[in-house]
């Protein structure tokens, strides 16, 4: 099978690259003409003569030093990418272990090679490279992909948990280790309190998002998800702030010089750094949103603006010794809402993918550095320190989780269960952040830096591998599973029905949270911010709309012909077995059950889903599209027949399945004026009912690999205006699309406006777009017209 070949090919390819690397490195070390076996070293050049300078013009030359750094970096990144490809080819693997495991292994491998060939690894990660180049993309990606509505809904708990959790962990681990160091037997007497505290702060930098992919299917509820995400987001910032403050303390050489005043100053600085960073981020976010308002004609620079402003916020904050991480996070969060509405569709996709790419490159490089320093001579192993570090990490995390959540549960509407808390405790996986901070400890201040690095590496390896691999089974075990007995067909059907029903009623109920603050923000946002920051909506050229119409037409055709001729569809093979079904036979029952399980529509997931390493299209988009297309068919058919869809009357004789749709109110009024500036053109076709069909969208990734796929819905108004809005596969909230009063004519769906924050109690402000579809009973207008007037779906 091609798959297997590819799998075997890929490690072979890796090997090829490695050998190439080795050869080129070896030859560079030797630095003379090398008769390397040419077919393995694609970049090897032959030196004709090397010993005497200026003798002859050499035909081939080798100059490895010139390209060494970029060459090796590129090879590393490529190697990691190939490993990732291999990782995902075996599709069960991502569910077993987090992708960080893989990256660490690759890093260790590269480290091993470099060590083995005695090569001086050229780019050593130093402080400036890390803080200026490697860290910002990672943080930016976290901030950008954060789902804002649940974040702000739970912000109290998240702040409480992230800030206090980090502090408790840092101080707790530091102090405990200090006590251990006091014990003479371990030979750690020279590690003073400050150093221990610093170590504590850097080791408490967790990266729990890395494990999220592992327990995706276990239906982690939204709040839990948000806590983990929020913690990951803020944890980096807090840890780095703490780290910097403690480094500043350490630089005050004499321990006795530190007075209580300094400690208070440290605390004050902590707060100022944090809050100041956030302020900076918000300001920059608004500026960049404002600028994207004017970029309609050069949409190619839109991603550039987004990235540059985020980076600028980071740098500006760092200049003033404020927390750049928090700045860039706040910038991303602020910017996202407005920028997404303003930028073109392709820019949006570019931004998303580029962000993922940058952050994944950064992380890969950090892990490679980690691998390189693992397999090296610069270790100092101290049993006591390492073991106690590990133990204290777990202990203090447990203490902080259970204590803090106990307190915050008193104030929450939906308290976290013990099971949730266990999951949060166990997801305390360390990642690249801790390693970087440990690696960057100044040797002058930390004579025992090597020991710290070793301990950090051990903790990282332990948590990533052991905890990362076992958290999946643990979560699945904790999850209340149905008994595995076979359910009857009845039960299956009814269960699914009830799931759908529950999801539907949840949607009717909407989201509840602290209304007032959000209301006020929404009103403020609407009245002022959006006017300033969101682009004016201009009609787009008709070619764009034509293109969209065509795509939609095709989509509808496809489904329609599929429905009409059932052979055209790929029938699942189980179905093919069952051509003639007899009643009551057990294997038929089996196959019926199989058909049901495979083919029933999935229930809409309300929980979030985020994959740190990947942006994959959602397969559930297809389902949403299908349902909507079928509804449109239903509507159209019922209009054609000129009567409302009967409840309880047999459906049409054609082999078309409809979703029954109640006859909508024929009034075209009742639409919020703000929702669309439609002119009411009902006059020409008095008999035709118009059905309001509205949709909202939200951005939330549903299942495993998510990425935001949008289904814009468009409807061509009679006046030739195109109303387009995006529709995205569901989840919980209602958002609003483009609250502006103007008819939005843009080629790209407005789903972005519908970010999670769209939710509010003040939903009277035109949350949804109402699309008016005109149905003509008169078929003479032809299908094009007909179809063009129906809400159409387009897959982006």
């Amino acid at each position, binding site marked *: 099978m091609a798959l297997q070949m590819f799998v075997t090919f890929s490690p072979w390819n890796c090997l090829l690259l490695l050998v190439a690397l080795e050869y080129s490195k070896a030859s560079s070390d030797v630095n003379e003409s090398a008769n390397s076996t040419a077919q393995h070293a694609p970049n090897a050049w032959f030196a004709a003569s090397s010993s005497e300078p200026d003798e002859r013009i050499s035909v081939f030359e080798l100059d490895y030093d010139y390209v060494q750094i970029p060459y090796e970096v590129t090879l590393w990144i490529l190697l990691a990418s190939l490993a990732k490809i291999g990782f995902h080819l075996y599709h069960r693997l991502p569910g077993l272990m987090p992708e960080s495991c893989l990256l660490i292994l690759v890093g260790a491998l590269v480290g091993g090679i470099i060590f083995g060939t005695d090569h001086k690894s050229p780019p050593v990660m130093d402080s400036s490279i890390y803080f200026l180049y490697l860290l910002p993309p990672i943080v930016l990606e976290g901030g950008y992909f954060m789902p804002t509505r649940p974040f702000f809904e739970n912000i109290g708990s998240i702040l409480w948990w992230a800030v206090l959790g980090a502090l408790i962990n840092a101080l707790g681990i530091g102090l405990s280790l200090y006590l251990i160091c006091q014990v003479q037997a371990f030979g750690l007497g020279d590690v003073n309190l400050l150093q221990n505290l610093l170590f504590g702060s850097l080791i408490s930098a967790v990266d729990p998002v890395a494990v999220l992919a592992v327990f995706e299917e276990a239906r982690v509820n939204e709040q839990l998800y948000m806590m983990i995400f929020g913690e990951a987001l803020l944890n980096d910032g807090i840890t780095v702030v703490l780290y910097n403050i403690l480094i500043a303390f350490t630089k005050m050489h004499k321990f006795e010089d530190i007075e209580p005043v300094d400690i208070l100053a440290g605390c004050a600085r902590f707060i100022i750094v944090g809050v100041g960073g956030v302020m900076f981020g918000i300001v920059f976010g608004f500026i960049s949103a404002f600028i994207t308002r004017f970029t309609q004609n050069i949409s190619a620079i839109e991603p550039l603006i987004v990235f540059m402003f985020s980076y600028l916020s980071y740098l500006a904050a760092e200049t003033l010794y404020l927390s750049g991480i928090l700045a860039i996070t706040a910038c991303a969060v602020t910017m996202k809402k407005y920028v997404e509405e303003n930028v073109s569709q392709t820019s949006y996709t570019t931004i998303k993918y580029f962000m993922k790419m940058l952050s994944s490159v950064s992380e890969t490089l950090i892990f490679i550095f980690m691998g390189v320093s693992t397999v090296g001579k610069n270790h100092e192993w101290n049993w006591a320190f390492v073991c106690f570090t590990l133990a204290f990490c777990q202990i203090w995390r447990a203490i902080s989780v259970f204590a803090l959540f106990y307190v915050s549960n008193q104030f929450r509407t*939906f308290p976290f269960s013990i099971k949730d808390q266990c999951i949060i405790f166990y997801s305390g996986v360390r990642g690249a952040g801790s390693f970087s901070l440990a690696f960057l400890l100044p040797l002058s201040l930390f004579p025992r830096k090597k020991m710290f690095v070793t301990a950090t590496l051990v903790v990282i390896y332990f948590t990533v591998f052991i905890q990362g691999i076992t958290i999946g089974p643990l979560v699945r075990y904790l999850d209340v599973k149905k008994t595995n007995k076979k359910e009857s*067909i009845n*039960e299956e*059907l*009814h*269960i*699914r*029905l*009830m799931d*759908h*029903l*529950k*999801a*539907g*009623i949840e*949607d*009717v*109920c909407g989201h*509840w949270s602290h209304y*007032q603050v959000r209301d006020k923000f929404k009103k403020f946002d609407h009245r002022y911010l959006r006017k300033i920051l969101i682009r004016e909506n201009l009609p787009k050229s008709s070619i764009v709309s034509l293109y969209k119409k065509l795509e939609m037409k095709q989509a509808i055709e496809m*489904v329609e012909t599929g*429905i009409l001729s059932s052979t055209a*569809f*790929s*029938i699942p093979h189980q*179905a093919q077995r*069952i051509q003639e*079904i007899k009643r*009551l036979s057990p294997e038929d029952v089996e196959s*019926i059950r199989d*058909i*049901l399980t495979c*083919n*029933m*529509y999935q229930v809409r997931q309300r929980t979030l889903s985020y994959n740190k390493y990947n942006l994959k299209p959602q397969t559930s988009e297809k389902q949403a599209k*299908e*349902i909507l297309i079928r*509804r449109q068919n239903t509507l159209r058919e019922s209009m054609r027949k000129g009567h409302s869809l009967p*409840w309880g009357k047999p459906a049409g004789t054609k082999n078309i*399945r409809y*979703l*029954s749709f*109640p006859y*909508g*109110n024929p009034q075209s009024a*009742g*639409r*919020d004026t703000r929702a669309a500036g439609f002119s009411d053109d009902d006059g020409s076709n008095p008999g035709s009912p118009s059905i*309001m069909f*509205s*949709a*909202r*969208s939200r951005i939330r990734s549903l299942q495993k690999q998510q990425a935001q796929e949008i289904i814009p819905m468009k409807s061509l108004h009679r006046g030739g205006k195109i109303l387009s809005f995006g529709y995205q596969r*569901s989840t*919980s*909230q209602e958002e609003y699309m483009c609250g502006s009063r103007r008819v939005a004519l843009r080629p790209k769906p407005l789903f972005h406006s519908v970010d999670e924050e769209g939710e509010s*109690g003040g939903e*009277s402000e035109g949350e*949804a777009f*109402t699309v008016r579809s005109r149905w003509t009973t008169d078929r003479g207008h032809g299908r094009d017209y007909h179809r063009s007037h129906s809400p159409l779906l387009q897959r982006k």
Partner: protein
Amino acid sequence: MGSRSSHAAVIPNVDSIRRETGFSQASLVRLHHRFRALDRNKKGYLSRMDLQQIGALAVNPLGDRIIESFFPNGSQRVDFPGFVRVLAHFRPVEDEDTDQDPKKPEPLNSRRNKLHYAFQLYDLDRDGKISRHEMLQVLRLMVGVQVTEEQLENIADRTVQEADEDGDGAVSFLEFTKSLEKMDVEQKMSIRILK
């Protein structure tokens, strides 16, 4: 909008609604807020169109039926008590409900009432029975387009057969209840936030 405490006063007949549905005061306030948010033109009641504007219902295969369930007896509008009455079916069952005064009417979120609500989603003509045809219709709604009509009919046949005990070719409410006796309906049809 005023403070929260005066909010409850805005809801008419709040006490009788509370007694009937069992919702807490806070939940009722929230639901009222939601009701007003859905009611775009401040009519004081909800029409089908208001509910249809909930986007997520559009991609729910049962969306239309759910909306329809809010309008019993063919009415075109649903007021707040009616709205809450439907949602009360999804209130989580708490222990205090179980040892109720037997003279009081069964709470809306009892298992029987929950099942009855689900039953009514199937039984559109309200004859108290799910005919094979109605089952087929529901199946059509819930299954993707790849499944052929014959397969669906077989499934519908089988489903009715399994549950039908008195052989009338339809599933009555009792038979429906019986076929689901092993299922944890209370948990499946409860929404946590509706306390």
